[in-house]
């Protein structure tokens, strides 16, 4: 199995969720994060003093998929999350060795 981690713009969450569901992937976990990249944040002035707002709000989506579906999932996420503007985000794929469903104890792909 693979863990697909996508850092996306927050307002794209719903589209990405729908895209993944359409693919038959019915589970995911999202986290509120802040990101820093090419899109650099900006300087603000607070009470007359400058300060850098380095990090911008992003959403992290984590979805564990059967290895065979990883490429397809990556593709639909990329399509759904894309605006073409800087700061659109990144998708990372990493290995998952084992998965267990807490409720039933089912393992691996059966647990997804």
């Amino acid at each position, binding site marked *: 199995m693979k863990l697909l981690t996508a850092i996306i713009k*927050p*307002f794209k*969450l*719903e589209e990405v969720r729908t895209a993944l569901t359409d693919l038959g992937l019915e589970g995911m976990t*999202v986290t*509120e994060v802040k990101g820093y990249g090419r899109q650099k944040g900006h300087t603000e002035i607070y009470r007359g003093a400058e300060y850098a707002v380095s990090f911008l*709000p992003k*959403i992290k989506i984590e979805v564990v998929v059967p290895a065979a579906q990883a490429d397809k999932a990556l593709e639909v996420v990329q399509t759904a999350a894309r605006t073409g503007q800087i700061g659109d985000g990144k998708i990372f794929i990493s290995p998952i060795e084992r998965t267990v469903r807490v409720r039933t104890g089912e393992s691996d792909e059966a647990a997804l």
Partner: protein
Amino acid sequence: MNEIRSKIGLGIAAVTVLAVTVAPGYAQEAAAPAAAVAVDKTAATAANVDYVFNTLLFLMTGFLVMWMAAGFAMLEAGLVRTKNVAMQCTKNIALYSVAGMMFWLVGYNMMYPGDDWIVADTIGKFLPVTMPDPGSDVANGYSTGSDWFFQMVFCATTASIVSGTLAERIKLWPFLIFVVVLTGLIYPIQGSWEWGAGWLDDMGFSDFAGSTLVHSTGGWAALAGALLLGARAGKYGPDGAVNPMPGSSMPLATLGTFILWLGWFGFNGGSQLALGSLENASAVSKIFVNTNMAAAAGVIVAMVMTQVIYGKVDLTMALNGALAGLVSITAEPLAPAIWQSVIIGGIGGVIVVFTVPLLDKLRVDDVVGAIPVHLFAGIWGTLIVAWTNGDANVIVQATGVAAIGAFVFVSSFVVWAFLKFTIGLRPTLEEETDGLDKAEIGIEAYPEFGQGSQRI
């Protein structure tokens, strides 16, 4: 031909020699004969100066007490967990609305029946309130509407108290049904015994602004509910453990307490019931001072005690301390010297610090500390009246506390039990776990996840 606001045609019509109305200090000397005098109520302003002052007192202190509804809402919103905050807001605005409705339909005339009792000196008459025509409202030394408003907000306060204790585990509509009975029957019946010139008043019981009539009454109703409702899931461990469930927002709880403190000047000050004489104006002033000092003492005592006992100041106890000080002085805010107010209020703070954990030991789950603050400090305040008010007697005071306590507790218990065994009081465990906001209100208090994750 309607309102022409400001500058236009608001003239001064006449100059007359003045006849004036006089009323001796009401609260203190209420036995004064009610000699209604037919003064020409539209012709001469000053003839009604006293009337205007008294009415103004009710309106001004009334809106301060009305503001306490917001104070309870904020205090409770701050002391419940995030998942129940919207529910608590809903309950508070709803109960204030229901209290107004019931006090119009039933409560007021049941509480102040004049000579028109169903059971003499015990159960008043049953009649909705109607407002007299403004021009012919001469029966009392103040406007009927202002008095109704002032008394109504007291009734609402009683219901607010219940809301806090039972938070996080009671369904909305059963709670509101209880509020209907509490504000329509329970509160006004017991209130008539004293403020309606019923049997407790005949006995010489003394409760200036309602340590017993309002605060303990709310406390007893809350206690009956808490016993029947049980504690929040997870609050008490099987091994005697107490699991604190800190509230969602200390600044909201603090704001709520400040609102209540402010409102209390109205609560106690307005209970002088008259303003328009040197004596009454001074009495109201003295009440403001004593009220403030009792609250200040409650805060300081709670802070020092929690620092000493626990090694850190407990903010929520300090807030409860302020309120306990206020409740303690409410039965007699006029007679005490300042130093006596400080002691009375300070002991209110002591009561909070000791009885909040005590209730937990007894496994009575009181989310916001309303029972220590309103019931225990209310009893204390009522009994100690005898110290500063020469006309009061501690046995009589205890009788009043016991009588009202028994009546309110039992009748509340019956109503709660009826609700429990009919429509049910508690949401399912899953609903409680998920939070009542989700189960009953359908919106979370802070619904956003991920800044900007809502559509665009």
